[in-house]
């Protein structure tokens, strides 16, 4: 049982950032803009979020600081993503161009600024956020240790974002319009929806969530930020596609990936798996191979947004 709790708790640290960022990607792509800049935006969000903590940790601590930092990360991600929005919406450029540019720009910029400001590349933060056990909830049998012990508030933020995303996409006017813009922008335009505005909104939400995801990625797993999110932006992109651009499937995909990654790192603690004659590197490969195999059997009907990647041009029919 303990080992199960442990795996679930641990899975959160992998799955939640992937989830948040992939959901961000969903908003962008379902509005019609491919966003391969998630990685770069995560770096920016991580940088400003951690930077904020670093500056303010002398004055405050605990959950308020973390929540404020999340806000900062989200805002900076959203602002950074404006560059992508501008290029791919206003300039109608190929959307991989600005995505690639942003991915390259972010780490270079972060190293440059960090070195200029503090001389050191890494930004340090004090972890005053770890939750050993959530009061009351943490004591509920089974559920308590599964979800409310050894966690970070980011876990709940992430789950909240997931639920909220599902609702926004499927139940609100904005969601309906966003989906229309990603599938058939001419149709949206013909009923008076401002496709450009909606796409801006989609990209900025993706920026905000990717920024938050950057911070959420770092807080539970390190004690400093070093200009990288280790390729998790690209993994989130994979989760997004794996999840067929649909909220519930993205949640499933993120947790699938999270569990596989956890098993790959923590297999030595799991009695049955430990004794198998399989090496570390093979375990590391398993999540990726499993994804490939599952995709091979489940991709016949892709549900990619139809207008994804195509710049919207009012004049074209």
């Amino acid at each position, binding site marked *: 049982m303990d080992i199960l709790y442990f795996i679930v708790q641990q899975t959160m640290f992998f799955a939640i950032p992937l989830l948040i960022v992939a959901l961000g990607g969903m908003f962008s792509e379902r509005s019609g803009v491919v966003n391969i800049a998630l990685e770069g935006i995560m770096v920016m969000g991580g940088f400003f979020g951690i930077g904020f903590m670093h500056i303010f940790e002398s004055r405050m601590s605990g959950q308020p600081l973390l929540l404020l930092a999340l806000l900062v990360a989200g805002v900076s991600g959203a602002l950074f993503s404006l560059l992508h929005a501008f290029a791919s919406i206003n300039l109608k450029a190929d959307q991989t161009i600005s995505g690639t540019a942003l991915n390259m720009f972010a780490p270079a910029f972060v190293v440059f600024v960090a070195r200029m400001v503090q001389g050191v590349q890494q930004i340090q933060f004090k972890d005053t956020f770890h939750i050993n056990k959530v009061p009351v909830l943490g004591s509920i049998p089974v559920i308590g240790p599964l979800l409310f012990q050894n966690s970070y508030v980011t876990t709940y933020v992430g789950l909240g974002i997931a639920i909220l995303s599902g609702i926004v996409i499927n139940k609100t006017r904005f969601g309906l319009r966003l989906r229309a813009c990603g599938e058939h922008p001419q149709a949206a335009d013909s009923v008076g929806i401002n496709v450009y505005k909606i796409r801006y909104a989609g990209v900025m939400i993706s920026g905000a969530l990717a920024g938050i995801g950057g911070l959420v990625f770092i807080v539970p797993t*390190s004690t400093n930020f*070093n200009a990288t999110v280790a390729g998790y932006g690209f993994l989130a992109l994979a989760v997004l596609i794996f999840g067929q651009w649909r909220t519930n499937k993205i949640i499933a995909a993120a947790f699938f990936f999270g569990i596989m990654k956890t098993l790959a790192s923590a297999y030595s603690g799991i009695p049955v798996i430990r004794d198998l004659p399989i090496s570390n590197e093979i375990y590391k490969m398993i999540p990726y191979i499993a994804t490939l195999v599952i995709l091979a059997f489940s991709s016949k009907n892709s549900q990619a947004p139809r207008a994804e990647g195509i710049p919207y041009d009012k004049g074209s029919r």
Partner: protein
Amino acid sequence: GTKSNNGTKDNTGNGTEATATPEATATTEASGSDQYEIALITDIGTIDDKSFNQGAWEGVEAYAKENNKTYKYYKPTEKSDEAYVTSIELAIKGGAKIIVCPGYMFEVPVHTEQAKYPDVKFVILDGVPHEEGSTTADVAANSYSIFYAEQEAGFLAGYAIVKEGYTKLGFMGGIAVPAVIRYGYGFAQGAEYAAKELGLAAGSVDLKYTYVGNFDATPDNQAKAASWYNEGTEVIFACGGAVGNSVMKAAEAAGKKVIGVDVDQATESDTVITSSMKNLKKSVSDALGTFYTNAFPGGKSVTLDATTEGVELPMDTSKFAKFTKDDYTAIYDKIVKKEVTILNDTTALDKDGKVIADASGLPLENVKVQMVK
């Protein structure tokens, strides 16, 4: 992230110690000219990486500031002999008279350059110049090679921790590079030695042992450490740059302990019980000193160990309850006097006289090594 995937190798840099660098930028103002006498070439990591680069850089900085010398570091474009050669030549162009090269990767490049620039001095850490494809050391008169007995530092940590009463240990190396291996072997032998002293039963000390495959803070590393702690491991020797940050994170969550590496990491996290240190800073600073006093020990290769205070545990900042300063002095003495033999990566041999493949081949009785591959 083209670059984020490129994640640099040794990018550790746990924080506080890294305050070294603000002054690094200050060198600009210090020098009106664009000439810098003392140069350091980083390997692909950075000067705040908690490893060779940072330790060496601190040494450069300490000496240069005290003696009012100009100094500067250079970062190669990639990790290859030619790139290092290019950087060395860039440094010489920048006026370098003595160049510090941290890491065994510099062995071939320094060998090339020591011949090409006989007027420039080279200090190579953890390596010895040799020709490509050969292993025969060829230290020219303008080169000085320094090794460290990491196994002794590791031994001290292993000894202290078992003396402190811990019996469920972990070793998480970054990549199996020689220095990391020496730390690990030393750690296991130190634990064994203490267990023997305490008269513990055979196999009563557990040691989980792995190399994680990188020097980064990643969720994977954090998860691995967390799973060890979850299984009962009490203390992990985190021996791989930023890997330590992930291990500390896991320790904080689990309420367990961490042993730091290379430099004193006590300020990184309250979970750091002690650090297994080698004195990079002092050795580099000393080497620079010899150059300016015309006593450059060119042509030599030395191994700094306990006898020269090349290794240590920072007893002032360590959070031991039982293991006392006296215990420390006593064991340090024994090491200095060579009363204990500590095998390293080249001297630990198996029955057939071949270098052992991994730590499970070490001749241990009380410590049970479980290799996690």
